[in-house]
């Protein structure tokens, strides 16, 4: 028996759906077995998971709400990954964005939303962008690797947020608990449902930032000169400099924009779901975003879908934990298993595998030009 692997020359088209469904089925099968091993109904558990994630209008909406910050952060990091800049600092940039927005919200209380919200977003994108520029600058001018500096700046950024909330920004009315005062109504992003006369649950207007950012991302990459140059820089710094591309400028640009997007996500999360700044705003979306960006292969539409699916998975797992009374650690195991299966499954998008038996193979090997891997 011999296994022959070939790179596909044409895209799989709808076959991709089959591949993804197959990988998902395998992953869910593993989860079902794990559930049964711990004495819970396997298939029943999967049904609860599915219903919890997609079964009701509100569960879909919950997934959508949770996907917003993941999507924005993911777009941001994807931008820098496209040119081989390893920005893993979205978490810290998210924190700084929340800090920037809060600064404006606290400084200008009582302003109407058309004034306050844009200023908050601006401040958030500025703060997040600047935080992203630090690793970019360190890399360009001092040769400091951006992985380490962006990772360390995550910790520093979060602790800076805590320093403010535990210290100078603490709301005098909060009995000493670490939270700022509630933003004035103009500083809080409202929910979409009431304005549209629909029952849209916790869905808020921050959602609008997603198509805006997504379209801008797509246009930037495929319609602008800088976008093309950025793609060319993906071949590496030496190639870029040889081709006389503005490599340094592009590094600053992608890190600044990526930071701005993560900062925007931070301000939306802060303003729409908490209505104030609290350390609990940090739940690790900046790291989730990295997984999403790569699973989606850095393309905007797949990033949107993957953000939504991963967010929904987490919503579904919560319901599963509640209904079957399984520990939270079990949800983590499931998420890890699903990610690994889907990732491995993506292999079949790019490669075809055929199995041949020894006798047939002997005939084949006579034919020249057949590449294979045993």
């Amino acid at each position, binding site marked *: 028996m011999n296994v022959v692997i070939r790179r596909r020359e044409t895209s799989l*088209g*709808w076959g991709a759906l089959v591949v993804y469904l197959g990988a998902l089925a395998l992953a869910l099968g593993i989860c079902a077995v794990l559930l049964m091993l711990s004495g819970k109904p396997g298939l029943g558990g999967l049904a609860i998971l599915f219903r919890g994630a*997609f079964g*009701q*209008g*509100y*569960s*879909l*909406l*919950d997934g*959508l*709400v*949770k996907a917003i910050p993941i999507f924005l952060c993911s777009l941001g990091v994807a931008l820098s990954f496209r040119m081989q800049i390893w920005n893993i600092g979205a978490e810290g940039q998210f924190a700084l964005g929340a800090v920037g927005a809060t600064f404006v919200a606290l400084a200008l209380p009582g302003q109407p939303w058309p004034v306050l919200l844009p200023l908050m977003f601006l401040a958030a994108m500025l703060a997040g962008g600047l935080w992203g520029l630090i690793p970019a600058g360190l890399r360009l001018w001092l040769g400091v690797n951006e992985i380490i500096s962006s990772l360390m700046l995550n910790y520093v950024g979060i*602790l800076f947020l*805590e320093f403010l909330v*535990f*210290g100078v920004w603490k709301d005098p009315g*909060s*009995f*000493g*608990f*670490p939270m700022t005062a509630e933003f004035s109504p103009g500083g809080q992003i409202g929910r979409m449902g009431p304005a549209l006369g*629909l*029952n*849209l*649950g*916790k869905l808020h207007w921050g959602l609008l930032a997603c198509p805006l950012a997504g379209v801008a991302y797509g246009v930037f990459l495929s319609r602008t000169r800088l976008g093309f140059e950025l793609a060319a820089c993906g071949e590496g710094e030496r190639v870029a400099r040889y081709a006389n591309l503005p490599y340094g400028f592009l590094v600053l640009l992608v890190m600044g924009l990526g930071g701005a997007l993560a900062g925007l996500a931070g301000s939306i*999360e802060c303003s729409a*779901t*908490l*209505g*104030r700044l*609290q350390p*609990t*705003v940090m*739940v690790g979306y900046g790291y989730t975003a990295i997984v999403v960006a790569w699973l989606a292969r850095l393309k905007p*539409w797949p990033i949107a*879908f993957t953000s*939504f699916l991963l967010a929904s998975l987490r*919503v579904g797992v*919560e*319901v599963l*934990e*509640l*209904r079957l*009374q399984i*520990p*939270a*650690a079990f949800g983590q195991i499931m998420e890890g298993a699903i990610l690994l299966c889907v990732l491995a499954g993506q292999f079949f998008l790019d490669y075809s595998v055929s199995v041949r038996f020894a006798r047939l193979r002997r005939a084949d090997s006579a034919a020249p030009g057949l590449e294979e891997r045993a």
Partner: protein
Amino acid sequence: MKHWMRTLGALALTLGFVLAGCQKGPDKAAENATTAGELKVGFVYTSPVGEAGYSWAQDQGRKAIEKLGVKTEFVESVKEGADAERVIENMARSGDQIIFATSFGFMDPTMKVAKDYPNVKFMHCSGFKSAENVDNYFGRIYQARYLTGMVAGLMTKTNILGYVAAFPIPEVIRGINAFTLGARSVNPKAQVRVVWTKTWFDPALEKDAAISLLDVNADVIAQHQDSAGPQEAAAQRGKYCIGYNSDMSKFAPKAHLTAAVWNWAPLYESIVKEVREGAWKGGRSIWWGMDKGVVDIAPYGPMVPKDVQDKVNAQKALFKKGEDKVFVGPIKDQAGQIKFAAGVKAEDKDLLGMTWFVDGVVGSVQ
């Protein structure tokens, strides 16, 4: 071109799902409502239940009310932001009649969900907000802290007590202050050194923090976090330690003097009883102390001499009678300024928002 069609197709499908779901949305609340008479109660924990710690102590309370024939469910490790709101709402939707949100960070999410589910009764732990259908509740654990402080003050030889502290919030600060006041009530020379870890559960770091305190000659270590790291550090150095949340003696049998422990059962049983009898009311701040049995200290370790036990038990008896003189002046802060004049008793709102250290604590309050 094909690529675009595929994308659009998938988008249309998703939209269809969402819209179909939205129409069904409103009437789903009643779907899982339980049959009349059977009470269903939900618990939201911020950390894993595990085998010790804050959520474990809460879970003992949950198990206690299960014995009353109540159906319970819980979700652990719930993040205290947007996720909490979703979990609490899921519980309300599925027909839980009482929901205990057991951590401070659940306050705003609880208030938001409570507004949408007026028929569900919400109990929020350790916060300060309430509403028509929301009570907040907590226990006067500082009374137990005061007693453990007395034990520490009587047992120390170096007069330096170490305190491995979690986050600089009033709940933790109040505990440190009560511990210090307790220690100095029996040993005016005692001082309390504080190290913040900014963690609720990082066993290795919390152990290291305790060791740093032992290195500056502290010989009794108290703690606020969920892990037993500090207990182990003290045991290893042959020094004493004081646990929190539950009896931690199994982690350090030779070092564990006692512990400030939670016992939520009486409070939770009483709430269930109230709901069953229709006597439950919203808008309350329920703050029970040792007199109602919500807080206590763990049994003394074998190394605690009889006379120490007697002294502490005498004070404990006062608490049991409802006589609470922990925060009664004169109380000075770290800078020596009088915060409560002689004979003045701190009000609950002062305790709730306590952000300063009493005289005798060494370290930053942030």
